[in-house]
């Protein structure tokens, strides 16, 4: 009878964990506080609409339309034209971060517009920090179109049709994917969950061991699976609180569109939270003390942050990094969150990302139960 999973023993652990969580106000505050602080920090950077960004002009034309273009950009207040310079000088300034943008106006720009040849204009951007350049880049086409709409002489107005009189090209240097706020805020959900959920259970067993309560627990008939699942369940609720906070902030603070099915998102979040909690439990069966457990959690968090596609575009990473990243649940969860929230993906579309999370959770859980020692040996 005691060999099988007992619901009442499992429930005893769950209740105990709840009481301990209730008593440990500081940790609980941290669990709610971390997503809020992260959102505000990231959100501030995203929400800011940087203006008067330093801009250099490389003008090989010198004609009136070149001046029209530069004037329109200055008027928009996004661009602060510093100087007119040479190609070499501009390239250096961009590299050194002295300027955010370089506008290259080709030879014969004015003449070719008048001939209707749609000359190419290249705007180079230092997109290292996409939050800095994104608003300006989003606005540039409208700025250019409306500038020429005013200044083109009557017979050439048709040129300003769908394609516009100039072929305006943007080249983002250093960060081609150009992550936007829509990308970051949903991604933050996965990052916050990874950060907090792994740590909280990584401490679960080591704390019992350090406080000496493990000896008592082991002397009772409680089974490893009852302890494990009993310790995971209360924190799933904490994870749900975090998910809800982030969704609310996405919607009402950052106005991120939520197109997809929220119930589906919560369902996958359950799996993802459980996967991270199981990972934490595994750490806590390996770690000798609480400090080690926290360090292990951190070493798990770091690659998750770096290789999941949250920080750097996933496709931009070398193959080995992609392989490593694919093993991490955060990588798949990010795709699910973005897919469901932004693209309105359904079960069929996210299925390829869900099973790796489930697999990860099962493996972590299996290792945890195997590693859980029922004796003090």
């Amino acid at each position, binding site marked *: 009878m005691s060999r099988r999973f007992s619901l009442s023993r499992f429930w005893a652990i769950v*209740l105990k964990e709840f009481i301990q969580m209730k008593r440990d106000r500081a940790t609980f505050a941290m669990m709610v506080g971390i997503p809020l602080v992260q959102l505000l920090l990231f959100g501030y950077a995203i929400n800011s609409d940087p203006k008067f960004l330093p801009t250099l002009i490389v003008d090989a034309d010198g004609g009136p339309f070149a001046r029209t273009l530069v004037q329109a950009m200055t008027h928009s207040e996004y661009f602060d034209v510093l100087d007119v310079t040479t190609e070499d000088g501009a390239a250096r300034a961009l590299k050194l971060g002295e300027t955010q943008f370089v506008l290259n106006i080709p030879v014969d720009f004015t003449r070719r517009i008048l001939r209707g040849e749609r000359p190419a204009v290249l705007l180079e951007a230092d997109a290292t920090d996409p939050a800095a350049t994104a608003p300006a880049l989003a606005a540039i086409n409208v700025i250019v179109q409306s500038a020429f709409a005013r200044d083109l002489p009557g017979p050439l107005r048709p040129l300003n049709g769908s394609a516009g009189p100039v072929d305006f090209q943007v080249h983002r240097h250093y960060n081609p994917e150009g992550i936007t706020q829509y990308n970051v805020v949903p991604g933050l959900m996965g990052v916050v969950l990874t950060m907090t959920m792994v740590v909280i259970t990584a401490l679960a067993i080591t704390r019992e061991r350090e406080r*000496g309560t493990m000896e*008592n627990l082991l002397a009772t008939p409680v089974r490893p699976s009852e302890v494990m699942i009993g310790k995971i369940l209360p924190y799933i609720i904490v994870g749900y609180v975090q998910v809800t906070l982030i969704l609310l902030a996405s919607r009402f603070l950052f106005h991120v569109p939520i197109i997809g099915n929220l119930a589906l998102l919560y369902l996958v979040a359950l799996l993802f939270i459980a996967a991270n909690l199981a990972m934490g439990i595994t750490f806590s069966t390996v770690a000798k003390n609480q400090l080690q457990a926290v360090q292990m959690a951190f070493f798990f968090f770091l690659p998750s942050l770096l290789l999941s596609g949250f920080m750097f575009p996933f496709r931009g990473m070398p193959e080995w990094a992609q392989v490593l990243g694919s093993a991490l649940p955060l990588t798949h969860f990010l795709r699910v969150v973005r897919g469901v929230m932004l693209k309105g993906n359904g079960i069929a579309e996210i299925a390829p990302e869900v099973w790796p999370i489930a697999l990860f959770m099962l493996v972590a859980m299996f290792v945890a139960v195997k590693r859980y020692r*029922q004796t003090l040996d």
Partner: protein
Amino acid sequence: MSSDLVIDVSDVTKKFGDKTVVNGIGLQVRQGEIYGFLGPNGSGKTTFIRMLCGLLTPDAGSGTCLGYDVRTQQADIKRHVGYMTQKFSFYEDLSIRENLDFIARIYGVPGRHEAVEGSLKRLGLHQRSHQLAGQLSGGWKQRLALAACLIHTPRLLLLDEPTAGVDPKARREFWDEIHQLSAGGLTVLITTHYMDEAERCHQIAYLAYGNLLTRGTVAEVIASAKLSTWEITGPDLPALAMRLRGQPGLDEVVAFGNTLHVSSRDPVPAEQTLAPLRTGAHRCRSIPPGLEDVFISLMNTARDNFK
């Protein structure tokens, strides 16, 4: 006969690394007995108890506890044993009631609510049931631990130094309770460093350096030590003690308040050494050896043999 043995193990050995902490110990404890486990610090008492209740796996040896095999049926043993750890090991951030309730749930105690209430009443913890266990004084923690160990009505109690740091009155009450439980058929294995507690046990065993040196009733243990003890009174005992130590035939010279206890395993040379004292300012008389004299003598012999 053997069916009423609650603990029946033999040759139990435990090593940590290359250090043998429990060395081939055998122990038989009958139902309803209060069995005292004594021995100096680090002698292996806690380690032995942990092997009995399935917390450690013996490296060698075999036997049964409550009729279950100590090596293979640890899960069954755990259900019927109440183990009180040496260090307080309940949840300090849970209240007294919550701790008891947790344990009752874990053991699947029928009528859990009544069991918790009953145990709170019996231990006089009812008024403070909402106090966090971590805020209790040492003595009250011990009482809580005992209450928690008993809540699932175990058939065997393993108590590891349950009275360390407990005041004399509380200790007396504790022992009265242990005797009541024992009269009701509960078997108790208890470790202690107190001689008066050893004398309240039905049987005692003495360990040193992982070896079982002696066991039996208090009287048997004292008799089997074949120790002769003298009590010396008179002026300037510390100087006399210094002088007597190391003299032929004298094994132990220990100050006992205003007297000196001298013990010997070999009374003939000891009598010769002590003879001059009988004529001087000191008085010297033969007394029956106490348990403590016996234990100290055993420990010193063990040190010579096993170190």
